């Protein structure tokens, strides 16, 4: 046991990198059902109780309105096209409709679209009156949006209709909208209904599951999420209750990647998600033919190579919550004024670079009253990081590392 209140084994189990490593290339979740591998090499999974059989990789038609991309996708064997009422102000739905009509292939393709409503972002609740950029969350508004989407898609039904972007449990259980979605399903305008979420996913998913009305969950899920274990458990909860789960934002999401200038190994990131067998399919946003080949090709072999694991590790580390920014704002929150930034650097050497010698040199180079020894005097660590690093856990790791050294000696 360390002064930071956690033993090393527990620390490694809980630390970000520990969790990340545990998730890399390891199929940790229970199997949600058998996979079907067709002679074409395309691998299908079943979407919960909907019984829809969908290839592991689907086409997120979000930022593309190129008919040629959709033609090629269908030729390759993509069977699920995911779009939304709001994407490109309807132009994404229109191009899908154009191809459905041109190919006369409506019965061979699963179409999903999403309906967006006004919300109070701070309180994470829907609003009955229009606000911000969207109309009010009412059945009337749903019917209007859906009618327009069906017209654009040139069909009289969709396969999955999502309540778009639920930011919390109150949104995924909002009764007026749930009733309207159920009516749309009963009216045959959609075969199945679901929610999409990319905020507070675990709570949002569990609440949606417990309503008993939704068929499908579309959730952000990726190797860079801080709370990916909680998302993984919520996904398992959903599949155990018979819901189908589809993953999005599998590359970490535009916000993260653009903000931190992170280049993600797309294939590896997709594999990471698909190694969770509770995920039926993924919907990467595809804007080029090269991306399409790369993403669809992932199905050939879901095992992460050593290089792919390393790529994911580097991307995760660059994300920032792993890497100490050395801003020193934490020092003021420590009653002993411990040289925390240096200790975080030592942690980085040990866990990020695998260089324990450098880590030990860094720890040993600190004055006793500003180093790990000072930490041992505190029963509980009160230091806080403004960038979200769990200082207490990392100090625990360093103490465990020091203890190991003494054991060997």
């Amino acid at each position: 046991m360390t002064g930071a209140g956690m033993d090393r084994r527990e620390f490694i189990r809980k630390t970000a990198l520990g969790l990340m490593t545990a998730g890399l290339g390891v199929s940790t979740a229970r199997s949600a059902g058998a996979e079907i591998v067709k002679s074409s090499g395309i691998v299908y999974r079943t979407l919960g109780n909907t019984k829809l059989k969908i290839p592991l990789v689907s086409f997120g038609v979000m930022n593309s309105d190129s008919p040629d991309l959709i033609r090629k996708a269908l030729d390759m064997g993509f069977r699920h096209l995911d779009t939304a009422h709001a994407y490109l102000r309807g132009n994404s739905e229109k191009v899908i409709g154009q191809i459905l009509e041109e190919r006369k292939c409506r019965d061979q393709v699963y179409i999903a679209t999403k309906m967006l409503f006004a919300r109070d972002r701070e309180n994470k609740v829907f609003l009955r009156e229009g606000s911000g950029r969207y109309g009010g969350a009412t059945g009337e508004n749903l019917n209007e949006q859906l009618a327009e989407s069906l017209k654009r898609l040139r069909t009289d039904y969709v396969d999955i209709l999502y309540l778009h972007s639920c930011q919390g449990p109150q949104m995924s259980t909002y009764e007026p909208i749930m009733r309207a979605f159920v009516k749309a399903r009963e009216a045959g305008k959609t075969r199945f209904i679901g929610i999409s979420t990319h905020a507070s996913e675990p709570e949002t998913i569990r609440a949606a599951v417990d309503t008993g009305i939704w068929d499908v969950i579309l959730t952000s899920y990726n190797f860079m999420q801080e709370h990916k274990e909680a998302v993984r458990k919520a996904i398992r909860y959903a599949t155990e209750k018979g819901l189908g789960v589809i993953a999005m934002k599998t590359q970490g999401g535009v916000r993260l990647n653009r903000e931190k200038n992170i280049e993600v190994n797309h294939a590896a990131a997709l594999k990471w998600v698909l190694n969770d067998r509770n995920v039926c399919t993924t919907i990467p946003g595809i804007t080029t033919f090269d991306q399409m080949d790369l993403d669809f090709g992932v199905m050939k072999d879901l095992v992460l190579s050593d290089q792919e694991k390393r790529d994911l590790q580097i991307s995760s580390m660059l994300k920032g919550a792993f890497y100490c920014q050395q801003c020193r704002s934490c020092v003021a929150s420590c009653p002993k004024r411990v040289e925390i930034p240096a200790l975080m650097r030592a942690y980085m050497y040990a866990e990020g670079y695998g260089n324990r010698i450098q880590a030990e040199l860094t720890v040993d180079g600190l004055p006793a009253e500003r180093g790990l020894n000072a930490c041992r005097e505190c029963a509980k660590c009160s230091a806080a990081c403004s960038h979200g690093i769990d200082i207490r856990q990392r100090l625990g790791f360093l103490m465990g590392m020091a203890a190991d050294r003494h054991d060997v000696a």
Partner: protein
Amino acid sequence: MKSNIAISAAVILVMTVSLANVQGLEERSQQEGAGYEEILRSLLPGNTEMKGWNITSGPQFFAPQNLWEHINGQAEMYLDYGFEGVVAAEYTAQDSPGSMMIEIYRMQSPRHAFGIYAAERSPHDRFIKTGVQGYVSENVLNFWKGLYYVKLTSFQTSPGTRETLMKLAGVIENKIEGACSEPGLFSVFPDTHRIKMSERFIPKNFLGLSFLKDGYRVEYEEEGDSYQLFLVKNASPDIAQDVFRKYHDFIRSHNESVFVSQKDDYQIVFTKRERASAVFQYGSFVGGVLNRADLSRSEELIKELIQKLKRVE
């Protein structure tokens, strides 16, 4: 052991370079962001300009780093179109239940502002002469001018809503200085069978090909046959040749029937699978006719394009 050291060194190098890039980007972006905020704020209608209306929410500013918080996944496309900043504010009428959302997006260049505007318009919209161009529906008015793409959304439709939208748009339009017009390259596209308001400018991954950048595309329809003409202007004829070669390789890898023809001052490749296409390279330009029912008139159209290009060069 050696490989571990090499990997560690590589990781350190990548992280050091990336962190430096990130910090540089963030610092630059913060500085630029501060400048944009004042400019964007100045474009919003003030109390005296919109009597009876007050800002009740915002103004909120979003930069490339946090645009996602404002428009979710659509942020990716806006970033591809050179998004630099946006101000969003909700106005509420003092004497009626009306409320309105104003968003003013600042883009990298007028061409990019046109590009994002055109990506969200439809030939079936009701077009108006606000800014360079705009369209209005019962509760939405969007237009572009200069570096800006302006979006107005009303939530209570009443007989006076459209008038209010037009008035607000007029106030913002007058605050955006300078005159500009649609990208000039659209003038070389043939007029016959051209679908009005189908012009697009797409800066990245044009036609789904990462090597095609800053592409111009127009839709056509002739006796039920829908097809597209496109042009990409490259920095030099050498670069255009390289782009053409890559395009040729792409076509060859996806189609069974391909043949190439070398003319006096241009080269052209024809292909037919489900639909027929012809792609040419002339000087710095790569262009073509895509998705026709047959190839019969494709070369004529390309000759017409090239003749017009010669005139504007």
